[in-house]
């Protein structure tokens, strides 16, 4: 029994070696790079060609052979010219760092024809996503030799996450429309899609803000409390000069005040939820993104904690995009799996550090006696359902 097994192993080994051999690799690569599909006109043309060939063989009439040769040469010329159209094309894709789901983003594709003398005709382009061709409606009827063109097209992502565009596929029906020849040009591009930003009710935001006793961060701004004393710099308001210190130090010293309206808000998103809560979890992510967007618009310093990922405190659009990136990539975890459990993610912080804390918990363990999350306000599934039912 051992002999056949060994024999089979050797055969399998030989087969694997053969597959990995350079000629077969080359052929496999070639087949991936190019593919040909018959059009309906092409099918009819081939049927006619076959018929004429049959007639030529049956009758021995050389003029039939001549017509048969004409049909075959048209097929060959078609193949040569279409290959020429797809040869030496170069692509570059320009994508934004982050796009928002359900909002159109503009993607730019640069196509260059590196052919020295001959132009390319009738080119159409597709993105290859997960092995499938996605038609973006891009077409160039003529691309002259040694020239390039920029094409832009809108991309609408429907869900958050990462989109991987593996390659660009160019295809052409040139010259006779008998065959659709496709060429694959590997060009991996990653797109990050944040959750969609939905409008939240003003009342909810106002409530949230006023409810919390957001503590002011020692930050410059308009206020009455002293924040800092520093040397006068040209352009400083002369009314801010602290005369007493100036007199004492014999240097112009100005007084900086502490901003009064700044409140720190921390948003915690629990990522633990079972399979059946997936829809709510996704809506919760959207809710958090929308909340963060609203708070950033109101210039609140905000902080996001998702699982073990902490965005840190910050404000402004840059910080918002960083938080949206975190939300784009966060993944739901089934309870009881993984290292991060419900509520474990919240790091130990003093109230001063985290400010007003809002926890978004799409699912909570009913058996647990108390919520492990320590937050000023916890939004549970029922509240989230209510807040996100319009999403």
């Amino acid at each position, binding site marked *: 029994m051992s002999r056949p097994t060994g024999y089979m192993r050797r055969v399998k080994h030989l087969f694997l070696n053969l597959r990995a051999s350079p000629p077969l690799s080359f052929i496999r690569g070639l087949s991936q790079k190019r593919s040909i599909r018959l059009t309906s006109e092409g099918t009819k043309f081939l049927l006619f060609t076959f018929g004429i060939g049959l007639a030529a063989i049956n009758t021995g009439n050389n003029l039939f052979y001549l017509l048969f040769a004409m049909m*075959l040469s048209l097929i060959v010329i078609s193949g040569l010219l279409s290959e020429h159209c797809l040869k030496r094309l170069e692509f570059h894709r320009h994508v934004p760092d982050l796009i928002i789901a359900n909002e159109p983003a503009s993607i730019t594709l640069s196509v260059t024809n590196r052919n020295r003398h001959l132009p390319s005709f009738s080119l159409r382009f597709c993105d290859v996503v997960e092995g499938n061709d996605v038609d973006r409606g891009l077409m160039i009827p003529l691309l002259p030799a040694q020239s390039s063109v920029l094409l832009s097209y809108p991309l609408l992502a429907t869900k958050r996450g990462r989109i991987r565009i593996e390659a660009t596929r160019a295809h052409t029906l040139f*010259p006779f429309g008998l065959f659709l020849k496709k060429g694959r040009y590997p060009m991996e591009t990653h797109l990050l899609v944040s959750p969609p930003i939905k409008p939240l009710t003003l009342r909810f935001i106002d409530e949230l803000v006023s409810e919390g006793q957001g503590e002011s961060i020692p930050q410059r701004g308009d206020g009455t409390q002293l924040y800092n004393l520093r040397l006068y710099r040209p352009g400083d308001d002369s009314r801010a000069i602290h005369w007493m210190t100036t007199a004492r130090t014999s240097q112009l010293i100005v007084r900086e005040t502490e901003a009064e309206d700044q409140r720190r808000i921390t948003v915690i998103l629990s990522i633990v939820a079972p399979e059946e809560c997936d829809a709510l979890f996704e809506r919760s992510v959207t809710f958090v993104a929308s909340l963060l967007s609203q708070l950033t618009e109101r210039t609140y310093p905000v902080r996001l904690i998702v699982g073990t990922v902490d965005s840190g405190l910050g404000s402004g659009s840059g910080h918002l995009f960083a938080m949206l990136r975190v939300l784009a990539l966060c993944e739901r975890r089934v309870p009881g799996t993984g290292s991060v459990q419900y509520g474990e993610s919240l790091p130990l912080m003093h109230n001063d550090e985290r400010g007003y804390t809002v926890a978004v918990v799409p699912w909570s363990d009913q058996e647990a006696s108390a919520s492990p999350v320590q937050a000023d306000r916890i939004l549970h599934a029922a509240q989230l359902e209510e807040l996100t039912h319009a999403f």
Partner: protein
Amino acid sequence: MLFDRAFTISSVLLAATAFSGLVLVQSVPLWLAFPTVIILIISLLRAEGKGIIRRAMARVTVSATLWNVLLICAFLILLIDLTLVSQDLLPAGIHFLVVLLDIKLLTLQQRHDYRHLYAISLMAILASAALTTDAWFIPIFLLYLLAAVWTLLLYHLTHETNDISPGVTPSSTAAGHAAFPSGITHRFFWWTNGTALMTIALTLTIFFLIPRIGAGMFQKTSGETLRTTGFSDRVDLGTIGSVKQDPQIVMRVELPDQPAVEKDRLYLRGLAYDQYNGRSWNHSETRRRSLNSVDEGRVFLVRPTDLPPGSRSIPIRQDILLEPLDTAVLFAAPFAERVSGEFLTVLTDTIGGLYLSSPPSSRIRYSVTSHVTRLAQDERTASTLVYPDFIRSHYLQVPEESQLVADLAHRVTQEATTPFGRVLAVHQHLLGNYRYSLEGDTATLSHPLEEFLFTRKTGYCEHYATAMVVMLRTIGIPARLVTGFLATEWNEYGGYFTVRQRDAHAWVEVYFPSSGWIIMDPTPTTDTLVATNRWESVRHLGESFRLQWDRLFVRYSANDQLAVVHGVRESSGALREQASHWGSLISAPIEKGFSGLVHVAHTFRPGTLELITGVVVVGLALLLLILRDRIGLWATTHLPTSHPQLAIAHLYTHMVRTVEKHGVHKSPSATANEFASLVEREWKAASPMVADVIALYHQGRYSRTPLTASELSRAAEQVGRLQSLPHTPR
């Protein structure tokens, strides 16, 4: 011209070409051809956009139902045609095809209408190919192919241009993006014609490469044969006259070995006759035997029974393309020794005639090697000749009522002292005293020979030849009558004789014991048109072209393919031999010189040889280094020509550095043009080169037109020239 319009015109022209093919095979009756031509003209004018026609056609709207009714009518006509009129599928089918073509031309609107039109056109050109083998098919085919390439291309492009939506047009261009032309540009015109030419070349290549299987069920086996006379077992005197006005081509004869025969006439022997009964010639023996075959049955050997040993003869090889005749006789120059061709069997009779087993149904090609005998010198002067009994018994027969002819023969030859002299006397008598004429039918006369010799004194080849044979026989010299063709029309373009029906001829073979049968032709030469005028040359050219067409296309076969393969193999062998021969021719003096050098080197002191070699190598390297820029080698081979911008910038820097080496410095703030002006002031000789490089630099760097490879090499040459200039800045 706009794509749409060009597309319609090319489609109509495609249909017109296919229709022309049908007209040329004479398969379309006038009642159908005339309206089709009108419809084609209307379609062309409508496609051209002529106002009146277009408006008129726009007004005439015919419902789809009516067209369907018309189609049904066309089909009914086909049935009637098939059952009552033509009673043959092919002509009826062609008529139906033409009616469909007409209907489709009148309803040409949607894209599927165009597709139907192409299918009908293809069927029409197929029908033409089925019905003809004539050379006019070449221009029709080429036009069809050209129109097909244009039509298919425009069919696709019109579809594509209609598909372009404004939303997906390029948003911006990086470098010279050209908008898609909406019409036929100059470049597009030549590009498409180039594609068509490429297609034609590829078509021919594929045509010659496709293996000819020839194992079909419907091979063409029968065809029309030419009617001819004079090649049956019995020939009435005067029958050849009926074909002497017929210009139809019977055969073409090539002489591949370019033998030393005169190109003005070649006798092609058909049959010989030994018995004359006063009105007709026939054979005394009708037995035929098969010839022995060699070389896998393709070569047949004719036993030279009538060729005595020691006779003087010249070999002639002939390649004969024989049209289908209503006789099984194979024609060849006298006297055939070997016959090769695609025959199952070849027969021969006792007097040297060659036959197939049955008349050929289509053109046949065969090769024959013959030996033309010449009269031995001793027999020219011999006073008496002794003939074998077989010859005497067969070739001295005369009809009983030939006494008048015998008297005439004796009278004519009374002064001759030798047999050959008598032969010449009879020959001269006939040549000098009778007039060649095709007038007057002697086939119905009871004594046609006497009528010719004594009453009318006019006649043609049969009369002359019969008279000579009978006259010679009456004075005891064996002779026989031969019928065949006298080829006189030499085609200088194709290198062959064209033989027509009117070249049918009769002549005489006279027997000499040592020399064998000698050809004598007592018929005077008729006044024929000399092929000197231009039209005659054109006709010969056309005729040669038709032969080549027939040979290369119509009759191209698996054997030809094998012959090409053998030819290639043999020529490659010959080429190898030739190359080795040339190699030895070249290497022999080199080896000789080298051995001399070695001999001289042995006389050097140790180390001298190494020193000389080193000096030579270093010298060559230095020479290459000095000349590299002058010959432009380095500059052109190292240019990144795939990136012309980089290349020209590189050359520009090189140029600036070169000029600076000569003391003309470019300040960092100076532009290229300012630098050019500086060079013009400081170093006049370098100015043209610098100006040219700078112009190319500007074009390559800043214009939308990228530099071509030739422009780059021009710039490199200019830099090289600049480096070779002497150092003479002002």
